[in-house]
């Protein structure tokens, strides 16, 4: 039975009313609701009937205010939203195409690290960008995505390049960018974002500890903010001034693990290419660990 998901709203509707609209029995509605739940869709069932968990970005309830976020695919269970979007990009999906899933069986972060999420409580999506800038000019894109995130939620700050941390240092959200390079041209970039909205794995933080934003509100605000920031890729100084204000890393003693070993020092600045200046050394790819401030 198709269509139950597209009829659900944030208000309760009786099984009888839904069955009538779909032209099926009440038992069929009940069965379909259970199937949707098992697929990860946050359908709520009570004596009042059925509804979708409030704040869920169902396609008919999600209204991006800019050009990013459409076309839109809202999915239950996937391997990872990055892989689903990659396949769509290869088929020719346009910039702004968005894939959001409730369950990621192989959600991942940098270098294949797992990203844990929970249906209805985590926001995990991938956005397709088709940058016109050549690859070497895209070093600021990961930082820009992080800035869009922190400005969209209004909580926390960024650990270079783009982890969103709560004020107490626990992780709220992560960003993963995967690009396909054809020479120096970028065929497409897959911007993957995972936000802990109403739940977090142990040791991490979730947004609703700090702000009452729903998943849909976070998503809509992020897309709009990102669209507004993207032109700043062409004016790195203006971008960096703004990035600096949102940084939890700059001016802090940090330890970074690079492919060449561990470096410790004061995070002094971010270069216009996005790399971090640390004790006189430029770092382009590394894990950053914030060290306690010296009292």
């Amino acid at each position, binding site marked *: 039975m198709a269509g139950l998901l597209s009829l659900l709203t944030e208000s309760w509707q009786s099984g009888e009313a839904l069955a009538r609209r779909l032209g099926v029995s009440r038992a069929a509605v009940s069965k379909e609701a259970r199937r949707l739940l098992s697929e990860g869709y946050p359908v709520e069932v009570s004596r009042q009937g059925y509804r979708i968990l409030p704040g869920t970005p169902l396609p008919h309830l999600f209204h991006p205010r800019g050009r990013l976020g459409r076309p839109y695919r809202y999915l239950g269970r996937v391997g990872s939203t990055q892989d689903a979007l990659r396949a769509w990009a290869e088929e020719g999906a346009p910039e702004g195409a968005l894939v959001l899933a409730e369950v990621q069986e192989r959600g991942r972060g940098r*270098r294949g690290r797992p990203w844990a999420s929970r249906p209805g409580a985590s926001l995990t999506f991938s956005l397709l960008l088709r940058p016109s800038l050549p690859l*070497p000019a895209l070093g600021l*894109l990961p930082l820009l995505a992080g800035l869009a995130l922190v400005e969209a939620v209004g909580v926390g700050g960024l650990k270079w390049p783009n982890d969103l941390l709560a004020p107490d240092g626990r992780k709220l959200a992560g960003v993963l960018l995967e690009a396909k390079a054809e020479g*120096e041209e970028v065929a497409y970039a897959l911007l993957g974002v995972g936000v802990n909205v109403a739940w977090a794995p142990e040791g991490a933080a979730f947004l609703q500890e700090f702000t009452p934003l729903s998943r849909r509100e976070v998503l809509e605000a992020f897309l709009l903010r990102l669209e507004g920031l993207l032109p700043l890729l062409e004016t790195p100084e203006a971008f960096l001034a703004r990035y600096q204000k949102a940084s939890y890393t700059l001016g802090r003693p940090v330890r970074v693990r690079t*492919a060449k070993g561990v470096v410790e020092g004061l995070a002094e600045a971010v270069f*216009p290419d996005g790399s971090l200046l640390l004790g006189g050394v430029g770092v382009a*790819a590394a894990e950053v660990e914030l060290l306690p401030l010296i009292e």
Partner: protein
Amino acid sequence: MTPKELKQILQALVEHGVNELTLETPDYKLTVRRGGEVQVVSVPQVQVPMLAAPPPEVPAPTPPAPAAPVEKPQVQTEAPDDCPGCVEVRAPIVGTFYRAPAPDAPPYVKEGDRVEKGQVLCIIEAMKLMNEIESEVSGIVKKILVENGEPVEYGQPLFLIQPV
């Protein structure tokens, strides 16, 4: 100067039928000749690691096709000596070189593998942007020139591929 600006200058040359242009600013001097090669003279050591890397080789567009788009900088070039006929795949960006999508995953390619045009050869990471580098030719991977996890410079040769 950003790569985009350079592109715009080249585009303008083609559109207006200009054959030679010299641009001098306090920071650099750039001479562009159509049909010849681009020369970047005295690039300053500006505080931008990306730009301090070797300047991109931008082939000038050929005169018979005035409306043609500017060709992209070459990152795959003919290799010298030890592997005649091989194509060199170079790093299009500064970053960390990875042979596999994850530490416990098998490598994208091994020496001796046959690869198709468009197949992913490796990842170069910069600022947590994972760039999949693909082969622009079909052929045999003759040599992998960089170790997994090593930092690479702009334009550094990564693979030698024998086209078939």
